[in-house]
C-alpha cells in the first residue's frame, strides 16, 4: 500500500502520546538513519520542532567501522541537536545553547540550535543514563525528540516513555528467515507485556540472562517471570523466541513499539521487498513500512 512513510510513522507517534521516539535496529545498515530521516522530514513538513541526538555516533558520511557510505542528516531550523562539539560544522554556524557534563569521543556534548539547513553529524552520550538525561534536556527546548539508536542498544530505553521504531534489513542477516526471526525476537522482547499481578510470580532482580532463562526452562517454571522492563531481558534471536515461547515473561514497565521499517537491499544480498515486508508485519504484528519503496505492508 503506497503511503508517505514519514507522515504515517509521525501519525503513529502522535497517537502513542510519547514525546520522544527511538529508532533501534537489529544490526548495522538496516536503515535506522533512513527511517529517522523520513520521520524527521515529516516533522519538518508538519511544523513540529524537533530535537535530535544519537546513542553513540551516527550521521557520519561514512561508517567509521566499515567505511560504507551512510545516509547523512540534513537538518533544518529550528531543530535542536545534542552532539559533540568537535563534530559541529564550522559553517554554517549553529546557535550554541549550552554545554553539558557529558563527554564523548569527539569532545564535550553541546546543545545547538540549527540556524541554517546543512548536513550534521550526531554524536550522542555513550551511556544509557546519559541518553535519557539528554532526551529530558532536549524536551526543555522542543516538544519532540528523535534518537538515532545504535545497533540493538536498547538499554537507553529503560525508564522512559518513548515511542520505538525498530529497523531491520537484509544487511544484518544471512537469509530472510533469520532477518525475520531477529526482528520478531527484538519486537517481542521490547513489547514484553505488563505483569498484572494476578498470578504467582518470580521477580528477577537485574537482568534475565540466557543462563537464567535456560535454567527456568529446564525447571519448567510455571510462575510469571517478571523483570523491571524489557531492557533487562538479555536475550536475542532464536534464544529470545524460545524463552518467550516456553516461559511467561512479563515486565513492570512495558515499552511501546509503534512501527517496524525494513531495508531490503543489503550490501551483500537483497530480499524481495514486498514479501519481506509482509513477512515482517505478520511476524511482529506491528505496522511495517518500507521507507525506500514508500509502502506499508498490507
Amino acid at each position: 500500500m503506497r503511503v508517505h512513510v514519514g507522515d504515517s510513522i509521525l501519525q503513529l507517534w502522535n497517537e502513542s502520546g510519547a514525546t520522544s521516539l527511538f529508532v533501534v535496529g537489529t544490526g548495522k545498515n538496516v536503515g535506522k538513519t533512513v527511517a529517522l530521516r523520513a520521520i524527521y522530514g515529516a516533522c519538518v513538513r508538519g511544523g513540529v520542532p524537533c530535537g535530535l541526538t544519537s546513542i553513540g555516533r551516527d550521521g557520519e558520511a561514512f561508517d567509521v567501522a566499515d567505511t560504507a557510505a551512510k545516509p547523512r542528516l540534513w537538518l533544518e531550523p529550528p531543530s535542536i541537536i545534542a552532539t559533540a562539539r568537535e563534530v559541529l560544522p564550522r559553517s554554517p554556524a549553529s546557535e550554541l545553547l549550552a554545554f553539558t557534563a557529558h563527554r564523548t569521543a569527539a569532545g564535550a556534548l553541546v546543545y545547538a540550535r540549527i540556524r541554517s539547513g546543512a548536513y550534521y553529524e550526531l554524536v550522542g552520550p555513550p551511556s544509557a543514563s546519559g541518553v535519557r538525561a539528554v532526551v529530558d534536556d532536549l524536551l526543555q527546548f522542543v516538544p519532540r525528540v528523535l534518537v538515532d539508536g545504535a545497533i540493538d542498544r536498547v538499554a537507553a530505553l529503560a525508564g522512559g516513555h518513548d515511542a520505538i521504531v525498530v529497523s531491520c534489513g537484509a544487511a544484518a542477516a544471512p537469509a530472510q528467515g533469520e532477518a525475520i526471526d531477529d526482528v520478531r525476537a527484538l519486537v517481542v522482547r521490547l513489547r514484553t507485556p505488563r505483569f498484572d499481578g494476578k498470578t504467582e510470580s518470580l521477580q528477577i532482580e537485574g537482568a534475565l540472562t540466557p543462563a537464567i532463562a535456560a535454567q527456568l526452562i529446564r525447571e519448567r517454571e510455571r510462575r510469571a517471570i517478571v523483570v523491571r522492563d524489557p531492557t533487562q531481558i538479555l536475550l536475542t534471536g532464536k534464544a529470545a523466541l524460545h524463552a518467550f515461547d516456553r516461559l511467561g515473561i512479563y515486565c513492570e514497565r512495558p515499552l511501546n513499539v509503534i512501527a517496524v521499517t525494513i531495508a531490503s537491499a543489503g550490501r551483500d544480498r537483497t530480499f524481495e521487498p514486498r514479501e519481506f515486508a509482509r513477512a515482517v508485519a505478520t511476524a511482529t504484528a506491528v505496522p511495517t513500512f518500507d521507507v525506500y519503496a514508500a509502502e506499508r505492508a498490507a
Partner: protein
Amino acid sequence: MKTGSLLDPASAQAVGFSWLRDALAPAGPYGEAQFAGIEPFAPGQEAQARDRAARVARIAAALDVAQLDAAREIARHVPDAGAAVARASMGDALDDANLLELQRFFDACERLDALTAACDDLPRTAGEPVRECARALERGRAGRFGFYLNDAFDASLATARGALAHTQAEYDAARGRASAAVAAALDREISLPEFIVMRADLAGSLPSGVRVVREAPTYLLCELDADEGVLAALRRRDEAAAAVAHAEERVREHLASTIRSRAAALEDGMRSFGECDVLIGAARFTRTYRCSVASIQAQAGLAFEGARFVPLANELEAQGRAFTPIGLRLDGVAVLTGPNMGGKSAALRTCGFIALCAAFGVPVPAQRAQTALFAEIAWLGIGSDREERDGSLLSSFAREVVRLRDLLGGAASPRLVLLDEFARTTTPREGKALLVAVIERLREMRACGLAATHLGGVAEAAGTRHYAVRGLRGIPQAPAADDLTQALETLAASMDYTLEEVSGERPQGADAIALAALLGIDARVIEAAYRAMESE
C-alpha cells in the same frame, strides 16, 4: 591541595587531611587549577599563614552563607575558557564553542564581582580588558545563555546568509520540480535520495531524471539524476555556502584578535576568578564549622580551647550526638590518659587537625588557638598501621617500631608527634619503658607532641605535662536488650570527654570493666573481673 612534606600518607589519614581537602575544595575549574597547587605554609611563613587565615575569616564575616553558596554556584557552572584564550594568543582561530565559553566566563566574572562587591578581600575578576572582550562578544548573545555568530557582527554576514538562503531555495525548488515530475510519473512519493521502484509497477521504462544505482530481481534501487538546471542551482548554492563560511570565519578571526590582544589580562582575570573560588571555599568552611583565626607563633607549641575534630563531630551530629570540644596546651610532649572510648584518639586527631588547618592558612575549628607552623605532623600508633591490610609479615609492634625508627631519623623541625597508644602490644613494663624513652628523645629533638596511653606512670617517669579524660561519671547501667547502639548512647551520656590537666598519677579506675559490662559481657565474667581488681 598537597600535603607536601607536612604529612606522610598514614598521618594524613589519621588527622583527616582528605576530609579537609574535600571540605575546602573550590567549586569550579579555575579554582580547582589553583587548589591543586596549594601546599602548606612552612616554618618561617607564619605571617603569611596568619594573614591568609585572617583574610578568609574577613571574607566569611563579610558574606553570608547564601552569598557564599551563590558565589560557589557561579564558579561551579563557569566553563574553562583557558584553552580558548591560549588558542587565541597563539594565533589559532576560535570556534563558536570557544566563544560561548568566553562569553560564559565574562558573564560569571560580572556576576561574581556584583555578588562580592561588599568584600574588599576578594580580587575583582572583571577588569576593563574583560569588559571590552565581553562587549565584543555581546552581539553574539542568543537568548540568555546562548551564542550565535549573529548578522550584527558584520554586515557581510547578513548579505552572505541572505544569498545562501536564496540560492538554497532555488536549488530546493529545482530539485523539487525534478522530484515532483518523477513522483508523478511513478505515482508515488520521492522524499529520499534513494528509492525503490518495483519492476512489477513499472509500465515501460523509468522516467527521465532517474538513475539506477542497483538492480535486484524484482526491483530497482534508484536515485534522482540531477539535470543541468538542478546542477547549476547546486553550484550557485555551494558558492553561496562558501561565501557564508568565509564571512563567518572573518568574524571569528576578528573576535579572536580581540581576545589575543588582551590575553594576558584575561589570564589574570581567570587567576583572580580561581583565587576567589578557593577563598570562598575556605570562607564557607569557616562559617560552617564556626572557625577562628589561630595565632601563629614561631616557637614549637600548640594550644587551643573549645576545639573540635570536625570529621568526627560531623559523624556524631549525623547520629544526633555532639562532640565535646576540648582544650589543652602543648609546649613540649605531654601524656594523655583516660578510659577506653573516652576520646583520647579524638583528642590526638584534634591536635593534628588544628595544626593542619593553620598550616594551610585556614581558620581553625576552635574558640581560640595558638600554634606553630610545623614542618611535620607525624602520627604513630593506632590508625597508622596501613600495612596490616597489605599482608605485611611484620607484627603490629614491629610495624610501630619501624615507623618510630623512620620518625626519629627525620630532620624536620618543628615537629608535632601524635602517639596513639604506642607500644600497646608489648608487655606493659617494656611498653612503658619504651614510651618514656621515646618521649625523652622527642623532647631532646624539641618536638611538640601528645602521647595517649593506658600505661600508668608514664607522665611522672618522663617528667611531662599530664592530661586526662575525665571519664565515666558513674557506672552506667547496661541496656536491657542486647542493643549495641543503645549501649553506645548510654556510654556517651555517662562519659565526660573533657580533658583536664592532672598532677601526679590518677588512681587506676575500673572504667574498662564498666565498659565491658555495658557492651554486654556475661555478668559472671564482670563480677570475676571486679573481684580480681579488689584482690590486687
